[in-house]
């Protein structure tokens, strides 16, 4: 390709430099923001060692460890919760398993709002109630329905009365934690929601262990 020197080439090179430069300048902070931010404040019952999930019965030994990855806006996650939620909550109440909730947010900004609000509810000891309410009140994805005003009022439905909760929701107190959860989920190779690991091994999607309550129970008990 015979390149001719001249001011036209200058324009061309400038354009190339600007396009490539601007995208690189945007790329670098994006890559950096995906790193785990260990200084982000974390809600109650969260353990960095367990992928920043919200942990129940973390102190038990010799019981199955159930890791649940879900997005509050994912309709299939709501179906999963409706089907298996009561069993999972009974595992927690009867101390039969360690359960870790990983609130992913890949479906967009309102998933981040919801995950942040759920973290605030963990501080109030109401994570399970709030989690259930969110799943029951799913709206059109990112339609503006799950703004912080709604999420704060949903807390009252869950029986949370403190002022601290609504300010935590409105401030987005745990948004940094939400992205840490996402980064940990990416490292754990979670490629769809819901994803459930029992003792670190994913249960079998193709053998309907997700959407057959009896098979799900068997998969957990198998350990």
């Amino acid at each position, binding site marked *: *390709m*015979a*390149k*001719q020197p*001249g001011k*036209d*080439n200058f*324009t*061309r090179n400038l*354009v*190339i430099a600007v*396009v*490539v430069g601007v*995208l*690189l300048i*945007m*790329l670098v902070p*994006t*890559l950096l923001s*995906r790193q785990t931010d260990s200084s982000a404040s974390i809600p109650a019952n969260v353990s960095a060692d367990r992928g920043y999930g919200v942990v129940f019965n973390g102190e038990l030994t010799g019981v199955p460890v159930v890791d649940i990855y879900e997005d509050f806006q994912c309709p299939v996650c709501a179906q999963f919760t409706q089907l298996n939620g009561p069993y999972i909550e009974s595992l927690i109440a009867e101390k039969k398993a360690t359960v870790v909730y990983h609130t*992913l*947010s*890949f*479906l*967009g900004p309102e998933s981040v709002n919801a995950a942040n609000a759920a973290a605030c509810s963990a501080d109030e000891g109401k994570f399970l109630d709030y989690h259930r309410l969110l799943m029951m009140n799913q709206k059109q994805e990112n339609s503006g329905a799950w703004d912080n005003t709604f999420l704060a009022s949903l807390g009252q439905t869950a029986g949370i009365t403190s002022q601290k909760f609504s300010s935590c929701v409105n401030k987005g107190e745990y948004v940094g934690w939400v992205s840490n959860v*996402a980064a940990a989920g*990416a*490292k754990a*190779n*979670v*490629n*769809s929601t819901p994803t459930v690991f029992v003792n670190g091994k994913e249960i079998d*999607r*193709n053998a309907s262990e997700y959407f057959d309550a009896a098979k799900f129970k068997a998969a957990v008990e198998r350990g």
Partner: protein
Amino acid sequence: MKKIQPWLGLAARLILGGTLIVAGYLKFDELDKSQMAVRAYEMLPISLANFLGIVVPFFELAVGILLVIGAAVRISGALSALLMIGFMIAISQAWARGLSIDCGCFGGGGQVPEGEANYLTPLLRDTGLALLGIYLTLFPHTKFGLDKSPAPATQLGESNNG
């Protein structure tokens, strides 16, 4: 043919560049999903897949913009052809292994229920786009681009150009 070639090149640039810009832009907003899409191909180590999930949308945007404005057409054409060939390898191996995933070509991605995966459409589309990229690598002189043409005669007075 001499007269038509720059116009064909322009069409190739706009189709290929436009597709890349759309594809990059749609992923740009949901990089978590983009990472998920790359991981779901189960081809690369997870950390590399996560890295590519972020880099690829930026790369698509950059190459797409350069193609549309017609700067560095040969290099951009070659890079996008390579990108498309990479996609075709990824899609083919997913198909051959019977993975149930969304191609994630225009955002989205990750696992899908059994039997819902569609590999033929993206494969055909990427083949076409790869051919456009190869064409631009071979014939990078196009209408209305910033790149200089080799001979002024192709820019002006084309009717005299035989």
